[in-house]
Structure formats: structure tokens, C-alpha cells
């Protein structure tokens, strides 16, 4: 049988490795859950996150990422680019609801939580799409929804790449719908 020191050592090893195992086990962005959340709330407002932002696009994108179990990162300074969290409407990071700050957050974690992509073809359901127009900063956020049947927009009823979003609430429209030709994109793939 095991001696007492060996038992203590074994217990220590188990206790020490448990958090690591737990973190590793929790890794893996749940794209199905993210997509389901986007489908549920693309035309509505989840009361938990309904903080009255005049433009809700980034708030909605953050909710989708959160539904996919991308871990929140809380810190003291809400405008610190490395952080991203929501506890309540009064305890929330800037990156949760502000597009340029979220873009800076994605850049900060590029290669760890997100990976910048050159085309929509590399994205998966639940990935962020940010955009910018002449005369403006990175000012709009949407969710890539994968391929499927467009529910509305110019390709309604057709099979294509899709996106959903808030501000102008859209559910499963063709990914390029209503983006004029001079619009730039930042495409982020969640690699957590």
C-alpha cells in the first residue's frame, strides 16, 4: 500500500494539476453555441446585456463570443486592451461594447485567442467581422454565421456565406450585403 508521504505527494500532484486540466478541458470555442445564441437574439435584446448602448453591434458580438465560451478576462482598467468582460452594465470592459477597443483587444491576443484572416473563406460560425468606412474609424461589428440559407437581404432564400448583427438588426444575411465597395474589413478567427 502507499505510504503516507507518497499519499500526500500524490494529493499535491492531483491538486496542482487539476486547474491546468480544467483550463485545457475548457479550451475550444463552441461555435454551435455561439451560432445558436446569435440566431436567438439577432432580432431581440437579451435583458442581461441590454445596457442602452446607442449602437449595439459590438455588445451583440461580445455576447455571441461569450456564448461560445471564449473566456472573459477581467482587469482593473476597463480600457486596457488585454481585457474583455461583462459582469453588469456598470462593470464592463470597453472592449465589450466599443468596436475600436475590441479590435485592439483582438490584435493584442492575435495568435492566442484570435487570428487575423485575409478572407471570409477562412472564418467559422461565431467569428467577428469588423468594418470601416472612409471618414470613420473601425465602427461596425458583425458575426460570421457560416454558410447556409439567407433569411433576409438581397440573397434571401439563397445558399451563401452569412452574417448576423445588431444596430441595424439582421439575421443571416449574405455576408457582403449592404457593405458598399469602399468598406474595409478586419476578419478575426477565434482560435481559442
Amino acid at each position, binding site marked *: 500500500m502507499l505510504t503516507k508521504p507518497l499519499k500526500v505527494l500524490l494529493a499535491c500532484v492531483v491538486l496542482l494539476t487539476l486547474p491546468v486540466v480544467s483550463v485545457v478541458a475548457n479550451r475550444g470555442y463552441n461555435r454551435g453555441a455561439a451560432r445558436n445564441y446569435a440566431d436567438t437574439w439577432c432580432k431581440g435584446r437579451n435583458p442581461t446585456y441590454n445596457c442602452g448602448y446607442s449602437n449595439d453591434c459590438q455588445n451583440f458580438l461580445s455576447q455571441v463570443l461569450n456564448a461560445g465560451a471564449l473566456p472573459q478576462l477581467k482587469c482593473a482598467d476597463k480600457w486596457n486592451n488585454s481585457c474583455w468582460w461583462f459582469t453588469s452594465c456598470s462593470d464592463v470592459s470597453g472592449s465589450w461594447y466599443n468596436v475600436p477597443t475590441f479590435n485592439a483587444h483582438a490584435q493584442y491576443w492575435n495568435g492566442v485567442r484570435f487570428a487575423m484572416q485575409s*478572407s471570409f473563406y477562412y472564418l467559422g460560425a461565431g467569428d467577428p467581422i469588423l468594418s470601416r468606412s472612409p471618414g470613420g474609424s473601425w465602427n461596425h461589428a458583425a458575426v460570421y454565421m457560416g454558410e447556409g440559407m439567407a433569411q433576409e437581404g438581397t440573397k434571401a432564400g439563397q445558399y451563401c456565406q452569412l452574417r448576423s448583427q445588431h444596430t441595424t438588426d439582421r439575421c443571416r444575411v449574405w455576408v457582403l450585403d449592404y457593405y458598399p465597395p469602399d468598406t474595409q474589413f478586419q476578419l478575426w478567427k477565434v482560435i481559442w
Partner: protein
Amino acid sequence: MKRKPFLVIGLAMIGALLVLGFEAKSALHSEAHIPSVLEIKVSDMSQEERTIASAIIEAYRQLEYATLTFDTSKLSTAFVDDLRFHLPDELRREVEIAFNNAPDKVGYLTYMEAWYNNWERGANLLEETWEKAQKEGKEIGLDDLKLLEEELGFIPAFRRTDPMPPEWEDWFRFYNIDFHEDVAVCLYDDGGRLWRAFLVKKAEGWYIANRILLEIHY
């Protein structure tokens, strides 16, 4: 008996507050949420208004060409520098980054050329960095992006390779077109954004001399 005048005054005040209150609110949002009934149908436009609508749509054809090729040589067929329309500082900065200076005479044409010039430079560097990282079996890192941003002076974006869908011209809505001698002011929506555009008349036709972004609703 004496209560009746107070009741009338009170009701009048409540009514006034309701009307003024709603008017104040709608004034704040009037440009952001323009009812479709206010759209000017092309069939109802005067000949001159139709010319303005055509000039704007033609400008977007040139924007699409510039987006897909980064060739800005055709933008001057749709946009113009006009000293009456000064570039705001943030737009002037884009010109400075692109051409290393922004003389007083620059206007919206130069700004749009700068927009594509910077986009092309950023896309090329980004692609180089991305390909290098992919060859090494990794993603672009934070340090790579920081270096790019320091070198460029802005956050780069990849090029767009997909042409606009055939129906994109149907996205346009024109709400108001006013003429002031050789200047036309047009409130229009391109499907994703609400703009106030200022066009100036030249011998060859109308050119966009400025655009102010009012709302985004892609």
C-alpha cells in the same frame, strides 16, 4: 368655476410638451432613421436631380474599380478637389500619411486617392507578413501588427477581392437634393450608410466635392 381655465391651460401645456417633446426627439434621429416614404423615386425626379443621382452611382462604380484594383486614376472622373470644402483634420491626416504632406489645396478627390493608396500599402505589407507567418506555421503576432502599424501610421486591412453583387445599385435611396448655383447637396443612402454629399458642377458634369458620413447601418 375658477378651475376650468386652469384645466384648459394645464391640458394645453401637457399637449405642448408632448408635441414639442416628440419633435425634439425626432429631430435628433431624423437623419438616422429616414422613413422610406421620404425617398425620392427616380421616376419623380427632375432631370437635374436625376443627373445628380447618376453622378453619385457612377462615383460608386469608380470606387468599386479602385477597391478591386487599387488603381485610383479613374476617381477623378467622379470626385474633385474644391477649395470651398475643407477636409477635416482626420481626413487630412490620411492624406499626410499617403503623400507625406497635405497642402491647403487638397480636397475630397485627394482624400479618396489617399484612402486607396494607404489601403493598398497596408494590404501589401499585411499579405507579406501573413504569408511569412503561414510559411512558418503560425499566425501574425501582436509584435508583427505593432510593427506594421508603426510603419504605416494606421491599422492595415486586407484587400477586397469580391466584386459587388449585381443588385447593388438597387440599394441606393435618395432623400433630398438641393441646388445652390453650381453646388448640389444630396442626402442619400448607399445601402449601408447615410451620407450628405456636396457635388459641384463643372463643364463636363457633376463631381462629388465632399461627403459627410451621417450614419452607418450596413
